[in-house]
């Protein structure tokens, strides 16, 4: 494979990984801020405030887990592609 093409493939992998990483963080930030608005209102109502706080905490933990797993899978896929491209480069050198 042409070294320039290989560098471009590596660059595309890197950019895709960065886009998913930063994109998921941005969406998570918006999701959290939007949900917080609702929880702030519910947590101010005496009959449901305790329950709302519990749900809020559970929600935040699940939210972090879901977006974190998206980033985790993204990093794994990125690492696999890095290895594949390194093998392609080695094969070309032989």
């Amino acid at each position: 494979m042409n070294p320039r093409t290989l560098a471009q493939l590596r660059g595309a992998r890197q950019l895709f990984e960065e886009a998913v990483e930063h994109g998921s963080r941005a969406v998570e930030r918006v999701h959290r801020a939007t949900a917080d608005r609702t929880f702030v209102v519910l947590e101010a109502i005496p009959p449901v405030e305790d329950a709302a706080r519990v749900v809020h905490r559970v929600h935040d933990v699940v939210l972090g887990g879901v977006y974190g797993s998206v980033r985790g899978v993204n990093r794994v896929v990125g690492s696999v592609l890095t290895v594949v491209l390194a093998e392609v480069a080695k094969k070309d050198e032989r």
Partner: protein
Amino acid sequence: MGRRLDVALAVLNGAVGDHLARTGNGLAFAMAPYVHGEPVALRRDALERACPVATPRIVVLVHGLMNTEDIFRMPSGEDYGTLLRSQLGYTPWYVRYNSGLPIADNGASLSSLLDALLSEHPVPVTELLLLGYSMGGLVVRAATHDAAGRDAPWLRKVRRAVYVGTPHRGAPLERAGRVLTRAMRAIPDPYVQLAADLAALRSEGLQDLGDADLRHEDRTRRTPRLGLRDARHPVPLLPALEHCLVAGTLSPDPWLAALFGDAVVPLRSASGAGLEVSRLRVFPGLGHAALPRSMEVWAQLRAWCATP
């Protein structure tokens, strides 16, 4: 596929090229002369292979934001470079670069590239003509500014610089983007903040277009407003060179021309208001996209360049 990929990468470079360069991404263009879509090493043997019939008069063509050298290609397959070769004996060299980098950085890189090109050129260079389209004209100006500061030998070979549709006094579209981003930042809504984050991804090169910032120090003086920062540009045109400007307008009507310019660059900006311009030609009815590949513009370039 190759050309389409190059166009897509050029857009990517213009949009986020500063990030690509910072992270060492292989999608970032490195500045180099390109022949048939491939970079040419700045060594005598490589330059000879790329151009077996080089002449002592050369022209260096510099494309604009999110472009490659392909932007100069006319439907006939000719471009200003090939026409300058066939009709006036110039050897054309097309420079490709990462248009998302600061204009000052690209100017310094072009200045270094010209050092190497002139020292390694297959035949000694007697005349260097610079031709920049849109942002490319600002890169040319930044390069001449860099060369003047360190007395680079290549500058002594330049008699004339041609700027086609160059926003010498900045681009109001970018200034509007700056105002909009700042306005969105002031709204405490997560969705608006997300949109502001996306808008702020604009590359440094793109942001430099707002006020035509040619030096790093000019960027510290940016203001979030639509109007021009100064009545005069902080970097004057070098008085030793002849500066030929080409501007277009969407409409021949003077009011519409003054209002919309060539659709991207206002007439006052493309005609270098406040700068000591040697020659200026305005083409009514020619939009920004038509300027780099127009036979009308070529006729004017030919007339200027044929003059000793």
